């Protein structure tokens, strides 16, 4: 449909629109008009993604001055979904432009790492992201290509050369390109898809990529640096954004990393000796460049092909001044690293936990090895420059030294918002010595700050952002729009229930003192077996942790519960091995497709909970076993909680409950993707009955949580499940559903009726002229 939204022509790829989607568009448009940031919560299953895409692409069409849409997703599967929906939207939009000779061309593409895009037959076989990067660099670094021109024996990448040879012709036609499309295109034209995508970002209207390309300074400076200020940045499924920010600025160093760093230094030393003998001028030139500052003189300006990870500190924190004299010469820099490494080694050899602030760490550093913070700050860039000068391509071998340099730069740069925690072993496994120095970022706003200041509109959205006022505080920004939208439903296609007791009326919980009680485990198992016998098609189970899932699966296996479960449905289990999990997921879908039905065991906070939908028959029921608290004794978590309390006055228990409940809500929300969809959501823990948990659930769950469903035992649950499944499986009356849908005419009427300034009351949509078919 095409409709007017306060003067903006919006193209929406369906014949109807939910009132909340309309409202969402209004909010979004206001934020875009005001050139400010916004924070929007809309229940899962109301088509957030397509609403966002539809409004922003329509806005781009009407206001060419708006830059790209940069759509950040948490996982690659989500990226694929966004691109698929965008494809659909573009196809649909075409019909409105037929008389005017086709829609204005749009280029949209997904960007991923070389690991996902490389098509070079040898390099793509490498195992990890780092090794693919290194493999690529070995074939495409400028000095390698230079040498290859004189020496036919040196191997280069045919795809990269193909793209390079195509010159200005090496570009993509307008269209929407998924990763698969890019690879196919690359194979067809013999062009490297990775560099093609990197190159085409500058011309694209929509770019979809992972959070880290925007948030993580190590990566974002390579990719997102040239993005213009007018871009619209969207963080979808952003309920975990604070954790992503914190991860991006944290480093941990284990013994292994330090050992490898030591070996790296030795390698560099040898290289320097070699270069000194063959080509001393190169080192001298580098010295000259360093004399006048790293970035000012373009010491770090480099071609795409040999980019190492960029500086881990944020752009404005990287000083534009001359590199301190004591690390300008290569040998001196290595000696400096050696000393720093020795200090870290000494630090790591602790028998007790040690907590430091950056200031106290620097002080100790100064006292022990006479290194000062300012020098540390340059460590990372100095290392990059040296490696470049020495023409080293094996980036994957230098991981250890990189981590050390990262650590140094971060410690040297930030004096607040970080903690340095040294632990000799993990508390949960005291018998296994595993010392680690952790530089942990405590303040999520640090990583977000440059994004908020650089881009004019940043949209943070998710299905679960409640309590919504918390996010502006922990991310430290001032949104022009904050809205939490409700879901309008004609039929109760959500059925959240709280299971507190098992079949024998004993309470069930994953509380620490109860979780290994055989009776609780048995009750959980019986409930699942009975549910599997009742609920058709797919069931998804989420456990609080891998550890708990492994334990309970093993116990169920011994008790014979697993065998019983398999009488009803096939069972699939998420493991830590991603390949196996992927295949399990694929098989799970096939089992649901062919009607056999299946159960998927997964873990809250795991990869599956984050990015895989179990919509329609893939998930008719979801069971959340327990409350997914973090491991609360973790020192990093403690430090963070303390920081939150001091800085934002957020109480520890509140934060922990908030965090656990948002994970649970996220998990159960996986089963609803539209209003025609339906799903039973079982919160299986007696603690969900309590107010402090329930209050933190998002409104779209609590408003369907009936009082009579708050304290169920297994048999009552089964009654409700049967009832629910039977009533939902009936063909629904479309005219009744029609009441919660707006047709094109209704939307346009809504727009003319409401004065442009005041947002139309879509919540009261039932009052507006409604569409029934």
């Amino acid at each position, binding site marked *: 449909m095409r409709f007017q939204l306060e003067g903006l022509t919006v193209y929406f790829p*369906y014949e*109807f629109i939910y009132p909340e989607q309309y409202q969402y568009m209004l909010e979004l448009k206001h934020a875009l008009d005001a050139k400010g940031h916004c924070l929007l919560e809309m229940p899962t299953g109301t*088509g957030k993604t397509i609403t966002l895409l539809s409004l922003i692409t329509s806005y781009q069409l009407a206001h060419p001055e708006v830059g790209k849409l940069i759509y950040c997703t948490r*996982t*690659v*599967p989500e990226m*694929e*979904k966004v691109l*698929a*929906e965008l494809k*659909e939207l573009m196809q649909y939009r075409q019909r409105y432009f037929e008389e005017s000779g086709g829609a204005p061309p749009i280029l949209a593409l997904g960007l*991923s*790492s070389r*690991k996902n895009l490389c098509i070079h*037959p040898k390099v793509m076989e490498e*195992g990890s*992201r*780092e090794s*693919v990067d290194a493999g690529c660099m070995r074939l495409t670094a400028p000095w390698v290509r230079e040498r290859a021109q004189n020496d036919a024996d040196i191997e280069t990448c045919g795809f990269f050369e193909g793209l390079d040879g195509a010159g200005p012709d090496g570009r993509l036609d307008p269209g929407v390109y998924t990763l698969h499309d890019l690879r196919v295109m690359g*194979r067809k034209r*013999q062009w490297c898809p990775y560099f093609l995508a990197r190159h085409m970002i500058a011309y694209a209207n929509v770019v979809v990529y992972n959070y880290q390309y925007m948030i993580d300074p190590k990566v974002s400076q390579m990719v997102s640096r040239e993005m213009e200020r007018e871009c619209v940045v969207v963080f979808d499924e952003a309920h975990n954004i604070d*954790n992503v920010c914190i*991860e991006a600025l*944290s*480093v941990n160093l284990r013994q292994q*990393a330090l050992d490898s760093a030591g070996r790296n230094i030795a390698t560099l030393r040898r290289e320097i000796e070699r270069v000194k003998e063959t080509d001393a001028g190169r080192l001298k030139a580098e010295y000259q460049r360093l004399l006048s500052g790293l970035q000012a003189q373009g010491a770090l300006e480099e071609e795409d092909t040999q980019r190492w990870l960029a500086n881990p500190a944020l752009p404005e924190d990287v000083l534009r001044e001359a590199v301190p004299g004591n690390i300008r010469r290569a040998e001196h820099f290595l000696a400096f690293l050696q000393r720093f490494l020795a200090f870290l080694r000494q630090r790591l050899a602790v028998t007790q936990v040690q907590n430091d602030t950056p200031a106290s760490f620097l002080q100790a550093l100064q006292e022990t090895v006479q290194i000062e913070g300012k020098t540390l700050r340059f460590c990372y860039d100095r290392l990059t420059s040296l490696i470049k000068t020495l023409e080293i391509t094996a980036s994957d071998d230098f*991981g250890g030294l*990189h*981590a050390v340099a990262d650590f140094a730069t971060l410690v040297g740069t930030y004096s607040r918002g970080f903690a340095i925690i040294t632990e000799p072993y993990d508390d949960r496994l005291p018998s*296994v010595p595993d010392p680690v120095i*952790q530089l942990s970022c405590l303040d999520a706003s640090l990583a977000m700050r440059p994004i908020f200041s650089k881009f004019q509109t940043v949209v943070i959205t998710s299905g679960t952002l409640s309590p919504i006022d918390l996010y502006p505080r922990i991310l430290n920004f001032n949104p022009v729009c904050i809205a939490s939208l409700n879901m309008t439903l004609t039929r109760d296609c959500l059925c959240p229930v709280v299971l507190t007791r098992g079949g024998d009326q004993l309470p069930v919980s994953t509380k620490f003192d109860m979780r290994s009680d055989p009776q609780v485990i048995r009750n959980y198992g019986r409930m699942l077996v009975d549910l599997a016998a009742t609920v058709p098609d797919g069931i998804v189970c989420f456990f609080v942790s*891998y*550890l708990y899932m*492994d334990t309970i699966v*093993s116990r169920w*296996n011994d008790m014979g519960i697993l*065998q019983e479960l*398999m009488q*009803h449905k*096939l*069972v*699939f289990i998420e493991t*830590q*091995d991603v390949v196996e999990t*992927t*295949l399990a*997921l*694929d*098989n799970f*879908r096939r089992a649901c497709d*062919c009607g056999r039905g*299946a159960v998927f065991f997964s873990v809250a906070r795991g990869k599956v909970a984050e*990015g*895989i939908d179990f919509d329609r028959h893939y998930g008719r029921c979801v069971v959340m076993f327990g409350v997914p608290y*973090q491991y609360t004794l*973790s020192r*990093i978590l403690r430090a963070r909680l303390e920081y939150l309390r001091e800085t934002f006055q957020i109480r520890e228990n509140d934060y922990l409950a908030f965090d656990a409940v948002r994970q649970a809500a996220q998990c159960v929300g996986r089963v609803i*993707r*539209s209003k*025609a969809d339906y799903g039973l959501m079982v919160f299986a823990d007696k603690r969900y009955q309590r107010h402090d948990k329930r209050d933190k659930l998002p409104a779209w769950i609590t408003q369907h949580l009936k009082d009579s469903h708050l304290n169920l035992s297994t048999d009552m649950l089964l009654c409700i499940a049967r009832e629910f499944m039977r009533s939902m499986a009936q063909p629904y009356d479309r005219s009744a559903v029609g009441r919660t849908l707006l047709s094109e005419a209704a939307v346009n009427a809504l727009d003319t009726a409401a004065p442009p300034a005041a947002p139309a009351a879509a919540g009261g949509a039932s009052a507006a002229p409604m569409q029934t078919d």
Partner: protein
Amino acid sequence: MAESSDPTLYTRRAKRGTGANAVEGVCMITRSRVKWQPSDRSKGEAAVIDIGAITRTQQAPGKPFIKLDTAVGALVLGFESVADRDDAVDLLRQLKPPAGGAGSAAGSGGGSAGGKGASPGAGGGKGAAPTAGGKLLLPSDTQRAALFKADPDLGTLYKSLVVAGILGEAEFWSTRQGLLRGGGGGGGGGVRKQRVGLPSAMLADVKPSADGQTEKVHFQLTPEIIQQIFTERPEVHRAFLAHVPHNLDEKAFWTRYFKQQYRRMARRRRQGLPMDGGDDEDEDELFAPFRKSLQEQERQRAKAEVGRVDPTVNLAADAGEHFASGGFGSARDGTRDPAAALRSTHLGAIARDINRHAAVVLGGAPDALDRLREGSTGGAGGGAAAADTARIAAALAEQQTAAAKAAAARAAKGKAPVGGAAAAGQGEAEEVSPERLAEWQTRAASALDDLRLDDRESSYMPLNIQDPRAYFDAGTGAAAAAAATGADGKLAAKQADGSTAAAAAAIPSAAGTAAAAGAGALADGGTSALLAALAAVQPAALPNPPCDPGLAEQVLLELCQDQDASLVQEFGPVAAAALQYPPHDKAHGLLDMLIEHFRGEALKANELLRHFWGNLPLVSAARAERANKLACALQEQRAILVPHMRHPAGEGTSHQVYTTMMLRPLVAAIDAALARHQAEQQQRRKAPP
């Protein structure tokens, strides 16, 4: 016993049982039972089995044995010769109540001419929907010849439709894809067998049973369990093939296997939480080397498979987005599981087993076991177990090598078009078919289906029968006449449009003849009583009974007696048939050649109709054009059929009545199609695309 109503069809000498202690006796087969009586009553008891209760029949190739499985037990009989045995098997096969209507779809010849016409192969093939592969298969010349030989009707149909240019080659075969696919494997008209599914239960995880008195535990193995163990744990399979029976006998092999399993289970249970992680050391050296070599293969296979997974569930691609080395991010923030690495070898094993089991179940039963089951003899007796296991193992191995070969061939094929650059790599060349891509795309983008205008509803015509009488009479000439008047009215508008003028012009003429025929038939019976009866019927409010019984009787009498006295004399029941009583023998009195002719015409008309309805609704120009062509062909078909309904011998003769009875449904079906075509065209013209 009630032998009189159940005559014995077959009697042969047969022994019960095999080997030395077989008992001599006689086997008798009646229509519903198999009986065996011992010659010497003291030596054995007689046995009676209902044929319907036989679940499985097994016979040993080359030996005169038969085994009849029932729910209560098995009856093993040994005949004097293989020929005797085969006779019995044939008879049983005939007598066994049919399980599914394999050939039921075949009889399409306007309800005429007995069921033997179409071969069962054709019937089975029609049921099969075009498979997901979606590529249209066209038969090679030899294949086509074989198919025609197996089913002559198909040949004539092909000649009259494709050779005559009414249908395209592809159109014709598109509805018979099942035939072609099945034929490819079985070599000549073999119907593709549906693959057998596996139960979801995890058999391979055998639980021991203890007798409670001794320390011993017992494991029970059945061929199904063995087969599942072999497919789910390939290392056991390999070990079995390598070691049994040269190094170990079978019993020792399984003892070792279960010892290992038991140790592992006991350990897990003892510790509750297996933290020590030293799982691999108790790995039996029997399996370990195979496990190691298989791991690499498995990894390769998994990698290839991940490439073919829907990208919206591809977590492996997501892993490629993150750094593998642990240096970045926080190490111990509570979300990570410190013991995961330790556990992964040990407890992960359960998860891996379960996932593997589910994958195997989804894959379906390997054909090997099936074949095994069919081929195996029931007569082998006690020594069968060892041989069975070996046979299962061998069959599985054979199947696996065949599958591997096929995969290799596919990979090579996939590689070929990509050319030199990719040849160096694995055969990964994005072997995702466009259909799957489209499926992924729609799956990912179709979440909000309820926002779409539901045009499914508008694409169907509602079934709305306001006047049931008129509806059910629609097939008769009277209704055709009514339709024809309607069509006539529309004709004027139609003829203005030049493009479809030819098709449109054909319709009224045909309808007109039909109307004339129908009206003629009625007019002949137009005596006063009939008219009175018709006048008494008020369609709007039919009383119950619908008309005065006395009056009805009068009409019947009049029709039967006065109208054509000779007819009624000669063919009492036929006259009744003309009054729409169900006829007993429709073909009575017609020449075989004529019936054969009608059958051919009916097959042809049905084929045309199928294609015609397949083209509705006329949403595209191509479809409309095809429908037009088919409508013309249908017109012609109708023109062939209708004259038969008016026999030169005159109205009301038996010949004419029979012919009309036989052809009327067909003509009515054609009329309905033509009327629909007319309506569609009208609509199309009204609403420009």
